[in-house]
């Protein structure tokens, strides 16, 4: 069986509600709220009454769910791990960008 699919980019343009983020990540809302309190996830406007998150937060929240399930981490440890992973991701991106700018030579 073969199916033709439709798609959505999980990027900064996409906006999802708090409830949608919980559903897409599979995290219970209480745990998601804890991750926000720890700063692992941030709504686009924290002062707003209705939180809205970027599509990138979906990727982070799904990673959080996988790590929580695989390592039995509490929200504090999870936030720490997510913080390190984000730093690694940013450094790898910088490294990739610098490597791309290095001439390969003849």
């Amino acid at each position: 069986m073969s199916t033709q699919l439709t798609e959505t980019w999980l990027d900064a343009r996409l906006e999802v509600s708090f409830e949608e983020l919980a559903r897409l990540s599979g995290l219970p809302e209480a745990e998601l709220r804890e991750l926000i309190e720890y700063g692992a996830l941030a709504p686009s406007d924290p002062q707003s009454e209705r939180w809205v998150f970027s599509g990138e937060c979906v990727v982070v929240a799904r990673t959080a769910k996988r790590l929580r399930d695989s390592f039995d981490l509490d929200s504090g440890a999870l936030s720490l791990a997510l913080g390190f992973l984000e730093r690694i991701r940013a450094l790898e991106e910088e490294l990739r960008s610098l490597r791309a700018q290095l001439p390969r030579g003849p």
Partner: protein
Amino acid sequence: MKYKDYYAILGVERGADAGAIKKAYRKLAQKYHPDVSKDPQGEEKFKEIAEAYATLKDPEKRAAYDQLGKHASGEDFRPPPDWGRQFGGDSGRGFEDVDLSDLFEQFAGRGRGRTMAMPGQDYEVTAHIGLEEAYRGVTVDLELGVPEFDENGSIRRAQRSFKARIPKGATDGQRLRLRGQGGKGANGGPDGDLYLNVALRPHPLFRASGHDLYLDLPLAPWEAVLGATVKVPTLGGTVQLKVPPGTQAGQKLRLADRGLPKPHGGAGDLYAIAQIAVPRAASEKERVHYEELAKGSSFNPRGHFEQETSHEHSTH
């Protein structure tokens, strides 16, 4: 059904206590978990490890697993006659196409309300695509081995094929969500989603950084000195690039909007990095020209060496 030696996968003795099993799992998970490991085989290895741990950490499942007896890894085997009735609650089933992990997964839901709505499983896969494909958009064929229930409610491993469209605008590490294309929901539960991670394959000419592309641009010494208009390849076809006089090696010449297209419009830039290329063996005629140039030129590419050295001498 193929036997998997869950104890061997975790590297523990069959009589290991729960603490030893947990410790062995955690050590291996730290090494192979796809979110933390750089091992290209990490994901596959982690799946095995997680499957072994999911069964051995649960006393009831572990007892059921132990009842299967010890076999060689990969050996075809049948569970003992009463095993299904005793543990699976389903004595009449066949075990030919069954994956051991699915059996124990199903085992977890045994006894719970079978009418409860259950959302389908999300699938996550990486699609490796070329730069040209990212530039134009591409439809990729994906094959996934997924657990599915047959008409008797028994679980079977099924091969599912997808055609997933990656629209233009992809770059390395971007994610796509394909709604409703994961596992089927049960009892009215919603279907799961398919998550696609885009990975760009290396290209012989272009190097990608986000949506920007970098290309080495070899120039003859006279092109760099005098300036020139040269043909440059881009993903959209060849363009003419004006190289200004006095172009230095390493200088980046920007071709606006000639990089990868962005998902919501616009595009990255293409940077041609100038390199001064010299002939490995100059012809006699070329040698004469270079010798004339050497005699007639006052250019000293290492002038700053002398300035810096004299400055050092004067300060010591």
